[in-house]
């Protein structure tokens, strides 16, 4: 009886994937040396190779995303980030689909995928999405897979520093 019940339920769903997300407003303002918002300390190394000289924090969020389900993060009125974990290997690497959506240019049209990418990400290693215009600068998003996906204390926290 127990076997029948277990078989009917199927395997338990994998735990959600937890990623850190830092949205940055990057501009060229002639700052020398480069200017970094103190709140960007954790992602500064990922920004150093970019062509901008001034970096300000827009928002940070810890994204908890279930497998094959899109999690939505509103970054600005123009950009929304969607994260969908596709698979996870025993070593902790996660295959994830990430896209940044923009509202349609004309009313009645579909939203536009400004950037769509599928990555295999390693815990603790950062990746950067960028190049999209934002308020006389560009949007840069720094993300990383967190090592501990079971820590409930980090789920769903959202902080904004930049107003549009």
């Amino acid at each position, binding site marked *: 009886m127990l076997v029948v019940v277990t078989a009917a339920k199927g395997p338990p769903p994998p735990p959600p994937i937890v990623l850190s997300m830092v949205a940055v407003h990057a501009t060229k303002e002639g700052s020398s040396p480069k200017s970094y918002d103190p709140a960007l300390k954790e992602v500064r190394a990922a920004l*150093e190779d970019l062509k901008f000289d001034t970096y300000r924090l827009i928002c940070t969020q810890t994204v908890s995303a279930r497998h094959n389900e899109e999690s939505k993060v509103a970054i600005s009125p123009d950009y929304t980030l969607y994260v969908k974990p596709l698979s996870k290997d025993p070593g902790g690497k996660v295959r994830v689909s990430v896209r940044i959506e923009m509202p349609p240019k004309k009313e009645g049209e579909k939203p536009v995928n400004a950037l*769509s990418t*599928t990555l295999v990400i390693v815990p603790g*290693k950062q990746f950067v999405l*960028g190049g999209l215009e934002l308020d006389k600068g560009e949007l840069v998003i720094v993300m990383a897979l967190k090592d501990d996906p079971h820590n409930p204390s980090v789920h769903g926290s959202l902080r904004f520093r930049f107003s549009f």
Partner: protein
Amino acid sequence: MAKCRYTKGGGRDPAVDIERWFDGESADPEPIKRHVAECASCSAHLAQLETVRKGVSALSRHEEIRDAQLPAFMTGIREGVERPVRWRGVWAFVSIAAAALIVAASVLFIITNGPRTVNAVESCSTELEGATVSSYASGNGVTTVWVNLAPDDIP
């Protein structure tokens, strides 16, 4: 004890030595036998020899291998030497199995955990008109996916 000509060292003729007679090696035992019955010194010496013989007999049992038994005895030794030792084989098998297990566990660990390298980009695209997307890994292990906008494509 007084020396007698029949006792060891005192005898003029080794053939009549009392110890040879005691060991049954005398060619003419009768004179010695009569002498021992009359001579207190030889009688006492004979008693000592008998005591020693009884003591030695009591100490251990001496196995003898006769000539007829020797081939079977040697065959047994050869079989013992040439017989494969079962436990030696078992321990060799256990050692090899343990080594194989360690290697397998190491390989499994490397495969499952793998070297923690960098993120990999499988695909990237954009729906923005005239824009392209490129990806690259920088020296500090950061993977970047970048949208290169067309000059007039402003959101």
